[in-house]
């Protein structure tokens, strides 16, 4: 995210919005050699030498995260075939790149873009393909359906930005608390979460330095799922708590180690090999459990009861270089 832009490498920027279909009302889109089309139920993607079909709700939930997170850290797999690799300034759009069968058969395809170009066309696609009443960030039981022909827009929902505190939520001039009045009511699954705030006594002159807030209450009022937002910052150490319900819409193949502190309830994680997609482990995380996701895997989580998860990231801009030189650890602690 806050990483240096590497020198130009001839990454392409040819993207275009195509005409809308008389049948469905949806526009088609092109990014380099990739062509994207949607119909009532599916996103259909074609590239030189291949094609792929995804359920439209799955596709929209995935591209929503990719857009909102600025291509995030490392690999964002929309599913086992399609996805993006963030090079921080440039981005690879791929099909089959992290799928053993596609790789072995030589059928994988990838194209590298200037990030702003691919981001622009992804945003156009997300906006055009998301109908009124459907919110790709919401839990499925809290929003409308993605199906059907073109029916209005939900632009406000798809233009949400990741919330990033600069020091800590609730401090002066930093990210504010969520309240009923600011449009963040307590979620139906967190109706029992205490809403009391800490007792803070500040001596005059120290208002910017003495502060505390109720993180669990803040999370109970999140209107989105699977969307880590920064709540506290120590250098490059970012606490990114999030509320989780249903399924993480992407398989995240991080380029670095990340950590999970489960704050409430339970998440099941499926862990697969980053390169091949072969299953490696299942992790059951309950309140108080701490675990890392190694840098050579992809992970996807499931949460029936809406849960609170603290995702812990190291946003260091030097990590991509260390990774490229093979000097970044795959596992953070050896014992």
């Amino acid at each position, binding site marked *: 995210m806050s990483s240096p832009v590497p020198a130009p490498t001839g990454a392409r920027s040819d993207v275009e919005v195509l005409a809308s279909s008389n049948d469905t009302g949806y526009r088609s889109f092109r990014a380099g050699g990739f062509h994207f089309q949607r119909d009532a139920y599916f996103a259909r993607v074609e590239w030189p030498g291949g094609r792929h079909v995804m359920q439209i709700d799955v596709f929209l939930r995935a591209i929503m995260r990719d857009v909102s997170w600025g291509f995030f850290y490392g690999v964002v797999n929309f599913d086992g075939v399609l996805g993006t690799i963030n090079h921080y300034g440039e981005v690879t759009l791929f099909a089959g790149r992290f799928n053993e069968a596609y790789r072995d058969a030589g059928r994988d395809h990838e194209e590298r873009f200037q990030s702003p170009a691919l981001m622009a066309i992804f945003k156009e696609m997300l906006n055009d393909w998301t109908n009124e009443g459907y919110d790709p960030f919401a839990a499925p039981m809290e929003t409308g359906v993605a199906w059907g022909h073109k029916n209005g827009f939900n632009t406000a929902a798809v233009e949400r930005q990741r919330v990033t505190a600069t*020091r800590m939520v609730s401090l002066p001039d930093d990210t504010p608390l969520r309240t009923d009045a600011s449009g963040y009511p307590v979620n139906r699954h967190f109706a*029992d979460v205490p809403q009391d705030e800490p007792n803070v006594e500040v*001596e005059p002159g120290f208002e910017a330095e003495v502060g505390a807030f109720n993180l669990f209450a803040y999370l109970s009022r999140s209107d989105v799922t699977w969307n880590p937002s920064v709540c506290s910052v120590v250098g490059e150490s970012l606490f990114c708590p999030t509320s989780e319900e249903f399924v993480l819409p992407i398989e995240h193949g991080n380029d670095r180690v990340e950590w999970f502190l489960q704050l409430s309830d339970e998440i099941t994680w499926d862990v697969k090999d980053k390169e091949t997609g072969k299953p490696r*482990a299942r992790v059951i995380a309950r*309140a*108080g459990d701490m*675990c890392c996701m190694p840098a050579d895997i992809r992970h996807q989580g499931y949460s029936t009861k809406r849960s609170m998860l603290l995702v812990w990231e*190291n946003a260091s801009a030097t990590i991509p270089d260390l990774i490229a030189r093979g000097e970044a650890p795959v596992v953070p*602690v050896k014992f």
Partner: protein
Amino acid sequence: MLTTRFGSLQDFQKGGVEPIDDDPKNYVFSNLFEVAGRAAPYARTAIAKNFQYVIEAVRAEGTSGWYTCAHDEFALCMDGEVEVHLIKLSRPEDIAEVGSEGARRLADGMPEGRKMGRVIIRRGHMALLPKGSAYRFQAAHPSALAIQTLDGPETLHRWADICQTTAS
């Protein structure tokens, strides 16, 4: 109404790693309440590490010593109730050099400096431990904290004792 399950020192249900084709140690899996519960009061045990950064698990019980740090730290209360006292040190760099990493423990006794304030955090509350201040914790009953900080001289590394090492 659905019940939200938070953990506590007295009541937590640990999950675990179920390997399919992997070593569970790769997931460095532990539980904050278990680690804090077994440690001495105010021992700062690392439960997560990412390069120089760590998350420490702490059991707050009674009154801690005073600490200072050259960078911000944050304390998240995971169980109980903890009072945080803050004093502005006039020369914090005498104890925690500029650019140094992690918390430093002060010599016993009240530190010299202006009182900054006092914060009481309960479960789910997060407090800033601002750089250059001296802080101490006080808890009438056993409580649990997660501290966002850097690996420093007070950080304990007990990975083999706290983490899952075999298939659960």
